[in-house]
């Protein structure tokens, strides 16, 4: 028999023995798979939490903008002139003009449930709102220079008196900066906590598999004494470890479906439109890869490391 044939025969036997051990030792299999599932669930949740925080942060930064409100008597022509000069700035991504009438319509719509405000508006007789320019910069850090541009009065109308009522940048900026900091530290704290949890659960999975091999130590010494080689003894244990990882990984992926579905509505409300369930479905392949690969890695590595101790005979 050639060496290559022998290799395939050995591989076949190792795989077969591994599968048999997985099926026959029901209690040990059940315990190992469950413990491994907890570990993989933690790893899955880590991926989710960092995704949630990243999306929220991006969403918030996207919300930063500058609203320039004009006095009611400002001419539309002047406002459009300013719009033009703003658009010529390299920092500016987009300028949207909201006319007085549109602003009023928006205001009415926003307060359609509040009869008092609507009647007060009617009382007033005329439109109290000025036109608005909404400015979006390319990156958040560029808002400062845009605001400065507006402050410097480069945009004062030809007629003389200033037509800009107020620029809301500075109030918003403080709040947004604060929120950004909070999210960043939450992100960091979450990462540390999750890393700790992951390390603990990996150790627990590792120990469980070590215990299963401890239970088989007499068996290992018998195999040793009938002259089985190291690879031939270790192989089936590694196979069992890998099967634990794959089975636990698949069960975890299935278990995450109802969990994320259940949490989906809540996260969508809480984290600015981030639905954990649809995120899971969109990134399913990545999750499947991360979770199953971690399972295989933990299973195989702990088996191989744990068995070393009993192979010395």
């Amino acid at each position: 028999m050639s060496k290559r044939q022998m290799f395939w025969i050995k591989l076949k036997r190792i795989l077969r023995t591994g599968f048999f051990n997985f099926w026959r030792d029901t209690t040990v299999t059940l315990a190992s798979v469950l413990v491994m599932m907890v570990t993989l669930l933690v790893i899955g949740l880590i991926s989710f939490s960092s995704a949630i925080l990243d999306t929220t942060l991006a969403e918030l930064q996207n919300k930063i903008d500058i609203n320039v409100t004009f006095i009611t008597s400002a001419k539309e022509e002047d406002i459009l002139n300013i719009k033009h000069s703003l658009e010529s700035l390299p920092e500016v991504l987009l300028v949207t003009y909201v006319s007085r009438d549109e602003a009023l319509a928006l205001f009415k719509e926003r307060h359609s449930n509040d009869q008092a405000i609507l009647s007060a508006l009617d009382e007033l007789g005329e439109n109290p709102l000025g036109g608005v320019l909404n400015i979006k910069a390319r990156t958040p850090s560029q808002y400062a220079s845009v605001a400065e541009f507006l402050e410097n009065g480069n945009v004062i109308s030809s007629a003389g008196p200033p037509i800009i009522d107020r620029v809301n940048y500075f109030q918003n900026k403080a709040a947004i900066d604060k929120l950004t900091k909070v999210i960043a530290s939450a992100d960091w704290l979450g990462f540390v906590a999750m890393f700790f949890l992951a390390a603990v659960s990996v150790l627990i999975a590792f120990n469980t598999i070590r215990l299963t091999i401890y239970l088989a130590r007499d068996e290992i010494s018998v195999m040793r004494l009938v002259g089985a080689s190291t690879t031939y003894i270790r192989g089936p244990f590694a196979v069992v470890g890998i099967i634990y990882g794959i089975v636990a990984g698949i069960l975890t992926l299935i278990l995450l479906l109802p969990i994320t579905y259940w949490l989906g509505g809540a996260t969508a409300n809480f984290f600015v439109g981030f639905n954990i369930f649809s995120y899971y479905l969109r990134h399913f392949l990545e999750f499947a890869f991360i979770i199953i690969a971690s399972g295989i890695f933990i299973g195989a590595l702990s088996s191989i490391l744990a068995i070393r101790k009993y192979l010395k005979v």
Partner: protein
Amino acid sequence: MIVFDRVSKIYPDSSVALDEVTLSIEPREFVSIVGPSGAGKTTLLKLFLAEEKPTGGAVYYESTNIHKFNKKETDAFRRKVGMVFQDFRLLPNKTVYENIAFTMEAAGRTDEEIESDVPHVLELVDLTPKVWNFPRELSGGEKQRVAIARALVNEPDIIIADEPTGNLDPANTYDIVQILKKINDLGTTVLLATHNKGIIDLLKRRVVAMERGRVVRDDRSGKYFV
């Protein structure tokens, strides 16, 4: 064939298990090693299997020092030796068939050889009906017969049996001894450690008596005096 040359084994707690034992065993011999517990019988066998290293002297198998083997050579050497233990040491998660097949697989035998040899050796120990049972479903005598079948299946040069009848009743003991005798008649060297007087009287073969780590008598005629 096997030579123990002034072999000593002193454990780290300075208890002396073997004290300069010299012993040689010829091919096709049936040697019983007798003596009370703690006389050094098991240590002698363990040294022969390279499970432990001697603190002095050397053990030779066909003129090679077995403690000079590397891991691979040790594995190969162990496949030439069949082993039977008092506590059977079967693999609990494997059937009778698989227990025996495992030894052949470990020795790198083909599937065809396994399929033809396993039933054959089970017939020899009279266990054919139990081929698909697990060890927990067998009696002590049956387990020991599986263990002997496993030891035999690779056609070893030598069979080592350490108190093989220690856990068995007289009827099963008799059966096991008859099987060992049959194996020896077929040409395999047998090395048997026991403190069962009945077995020795039954065998009428060479007896080596040990006491406190020394060989106190080597009797070709085969009687158990204590």
